[in-house]
C-alpha cells in the first residue's frame, strides 16, 4: 500500500540538480527529484512521466542512479523500489530486419 499523501517534505533545490542522470533522454537529477514531489512515487511512474530509461540503452545505464535518487527523496531504501519492466527487443532492431520472421509471397 502506497499512500500518495504521506509527507515527504518540500522539494529543496540542490547544487547538483542540473547533473544529467539519464544520458539517452537527457533527464537531470533535479527533474527526477521534482517529479517525486509531483507524486511520481515509483520507477515506472518516473519513466512514464520523464522518459528516464526510455532511450536507446533502455535504462541499462541510469536505472540504479534513478532508483537511488527517488529512494532518497521518498526517505526509503532503494531496494524497496521495483525496477520498471524490461521490454523486448533486447537491442534496438530495424523494422526491415524484424519484419523478416516470415518471407512474403510475391
Amino acid at each position, binding site marked *: *500500500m*502506497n*499512500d*500518495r*499523501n504521506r509527507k515527504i517534505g518540500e522539494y529543496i533545490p540542490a547544487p547538483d540538480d542540473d547533473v544529467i542522470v539519464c544520458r539517452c533522454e537527457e533527464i537531470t537529477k533535479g527533474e527526477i527529484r521534482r517529479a517525486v514531489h*509531483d*507524486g*511520481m*512515487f*515509483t520507477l*515506472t*511512474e518516473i519513466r*512514464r*512521466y520523464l*522518459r528516464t530509461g*526510455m*532511450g*536507446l540503452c*533502455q535504462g541499462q545505464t541510469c536505472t540504479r542512479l534513478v532508483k537511488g535518487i527517488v529512494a532518497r527523496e521518498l526517505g526509503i531504501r532503494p531496494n524497496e523500489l*521495483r525496477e520498471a*519492466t524490461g*521490454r*523486448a*527487443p533486447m537491442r*534496438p*532492431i*530495424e*523494422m*526491415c530486419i*524484424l*519484419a*523478416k*520472421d*516470415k518471407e*512474403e509471397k510475391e
Partner: protein
Amino acid sequence: MNAEVIIVGGGIIGCAAAYNLAKNGTSVLVLEGSENIGNGGSSRNGGGVRQSGRDPRELPLAMYAIKHIWKELSDMLDTDVEYYQHGNLRLGSTQKHRQILEGLTKRGAEYGLDVRMIDGYEARQINPYLSEEVTCASWCPTDGHANPLMATMGYYKMARRLGAHFISGEKVKELRKIKGAARQVVTESGNVYEGDKIIVAAGYDSRFIASTVGIDIPMQPVLLETLVTEAAAPMFWQMLGTADADFYGHQTTHGSFVFGLNSGYEPYAKPGKPFSSSIAASAACRGIMHYFPSLADIKIVRSWAGWMDSCADHVPVISTVEEVPGLILACGFSGHGFGISPAVGLLLSQLALEQETVLDLSAFRYNRFS
C-alpha cells in the same frame, strides 16, 4: 477513511474524474489496485484522439472532448500532453478497403463530422511519405493524437495538487451496501473506506467489483500490443490508421513513432499478465513498410502489451445503477477510452455531483444489454 466520492481505479478515467471533482472542492479518494498510477490501457494505448471511425453513440463524447477540452488540456494540467490536431488518415489499398472506409466515412458524416474520402494522390499531398500502394483514404482534419502517459500522469498530478487523495497497491475486493445504497469499499488488505458515491473505473476488474453488488457488465479482456521506435527528425503529425486496422500510430514530440498493432491472434492471448507476442510486431512492421517504405531502417526500441476491457457492443458503460444507488460505473471502454477520457472525467464528476450532464448518457446505460 471517508471521502465524498471514492474512485476505484487510477487510470486516466479515474484520474480525470478525480481532477474534475477536486476542482469542484469535493473530497475524493482514488484507490489503485496496482503499484502504479495509469497501469492499464491508459499507459499502453496508441494515443489516438479520434472522432472518425467511432461508433455513432460514442461520437458526441469524442467531438465534445476535441472541441472543448483537448486544446486546453496542457494548460489545465500544467503538463505538456503533446496534443496535435493535424488530422487522421485511414489508409487503404484495395477495393475492399475502399468499401470499409466509405462505410465509416458515410456514418461519421451523417452525424455531422467533417470526414471525407480522398484518393491516393491527395493522401500523398497530406503525407508525402506514403507509398504508391495507398489508393484511397478517409481524411478527418480535426482528429489528432496526444501522449497517453503525459495526459494520465498530468491528470493525476493536478488532481493531487487540487487535494485528491490517491492510494496505490490497494486492490478492491468488494463493495458493500448500507441501507440499500453503495457505501463501503473493502480492499484485499482488509481496509474499509466509506463514500457517498463510488465510481468504479477499474477496466476489466470492474466486472468482478460490480458483481459484488449483483451487477454484471458483459465484457472481455482483449490484448493490445504497441511498439515504439527510436527518435527521427520530424516527418509528419497526422494520426494514421488503416482500413484493416492492422496498425495505427503517429510520430511523437520526442521524434519516435508509436504504432499500435493487430495481428489477429489477440483474442487468443494467454490470460494473466499481458505479454507481447512473438509475431505481432513483425507482422506490423511488414504492414507499416508497405505504406511507409522510408521507415524500413528505423529501429524499434521497445514493445509492450496491455488488456482492453472490451464491452459486448464495443462502447463503454458510463452509468448510475438503479438497483445500487450511489454506484457509478465507467468501464468497457473497448480500446477507445483515451481520446474521450477528458469528456468522460467531466461527465463522471457531474453524475457523482447529481448535476445535469453536458451530454446525454442514455446510450451508455449499464442495463442496455437485455
